[in-house]
């Protein structure tokens, strides 16, 4: 599973890092989010899916591996 944050859409609501703190990191100055790593560790997949679903801007893009 892969994840990235669309930086044009992200407005720094911070829900992703609240839900999946190991997978998303917030910029110190603007508070906008980016993925810690494009590849999601298996034990983080559920949290990352929940973060994507909870994003008010729908800015988190997940690609499930086939």
């Amino acid at each position, binding site marked *: 599973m892969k994840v990235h944050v669309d930086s044009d859409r992200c*407005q*720094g*609501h*911070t*829900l992703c*890092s*609240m*839900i999946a703190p190991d997978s998303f990191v*917030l*910029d*110190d*100055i*603007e*508070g906008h989010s980016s993925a810690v790593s494009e590849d999601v560790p298996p034990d983080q997949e559920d949290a990352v899916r*929940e973060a994507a*679903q*909870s*994003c*008010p*801007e*729908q800015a988190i893009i997940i690609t499930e591996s086939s």
Partner: protein
Amino acid sequence: MSVDDIVSDSDRKKNRYHFDRHTPEYRTQFEKITEDIHAKCPVAWTDTYEGHWVAGGSQAVFELARCPVVSNDHDINGERQGYKGISIPTAKRASGVRGGILEMDEPEHRIYRTVLNPFLSPAAVKRWAPFIDDVTRACLDEKIEEGVIDFVDDLANVVPAVLTLAMLGIPLNKWSMYSEPTHAALYTPEHSPDLDRVNAMHREMGLDLLNNMIEIRENARPGIVNALIQMRIDGEPAPDLEIMGNLGLIIGGGFDTTTALTAHSLEWLSQHPDQRERLSRERDTLLDPATEEFLRYFTPAPGDGRTFSDDVEIEGTQFKEGERLWISWAMANRDPSVFADPNEIVLDRKGNRHFSFGLGVHRCIGSNVARTVFKSMLTAVLDRMPDYECDPEGTVHYETIGVIQGMRHLPATFTPGRRVGAGLDETLEKLQRICDEQQLALPITERKDAAVID
């Protein structure tokens, strides 16, 4: 206007709904009105307040709030298109001053917001946590031995106000001079006999703010006021009126919204003691989702006005340039297509992509402050007054919730406890010294460390 235009106009506005969010009935009928709008017309035309659109469905709100031809601009002096900003109808008090970044479009909005971000980002706010906890502690110490508290007057009005002044760089002991008129302006109707007194307090606050600005311009001290004074746009300082507008927005946005969220949440938890006990016990996992759920359900700032800056079709509705729009975060937050059982509070709700801080580039810049202050107050009450019971007789909700879904009073009783520190005045004196010594109001770019409270 030709016959064809009239036909097409009535066709465009075929979803009609009489919508007046400034009546007391709107508060009592909110769930029914919301269900009506979701079922019949996610976007409706209403004739109230010279006519405007109302967006209540989550998908329409999502698209409209992020639409580049939906404008926040408040053109006070008729220099651009004459748009009226975010208030519907234009509030008398707000007609002469633009509401800071919330009433600006790009690129102007971005220029000012970039100045404010380093004071309000998650990392910036986290530095204040020990300061916030100490203000909260002092508020509870004032009341803990009595066994009686008003959660609005004695806690939720105080902590957000003190922190906001600290971040601005204004002396902490002025908090009530700022808090009272800000709060009262929202619940005092235009016809109230009390309006003169409230307006006088408002003027006193405005004057003090202006004096602080002059003082800080002469003798810089850290904080948001200083940053707005120091900023340059194409080499020129920002106009004083825009600085005042932004300071007014931070004060107005920072005070009453967090108060409203805290009071409503504490009231609900008093009515649901089993949930309160669970929240306290499982706070490590439950505090974050519960905070988001309270935000969703109570939506302290229920919506914003906008103006279409071009003709556009969104979600099947055609909008014309110049038409006004009310985007209802509160109604989008109850859309059953996004939130199962939308009228229930589910503390561990999943996928809670609520609309309470708005969407798009105007996302509430104080959202990190609101969450941090709310969590400090809530957990301190759960720890020190775990059996509190709110008194429904003394509870006063705002009569109308068109601007803020707030509360005036929330008295409660609890088993008395022991003080653990100084009272509020003494604590604020100490915290002022700490603010000054540790330069707490510097932006995150200049100071990374958390406050140290001795």
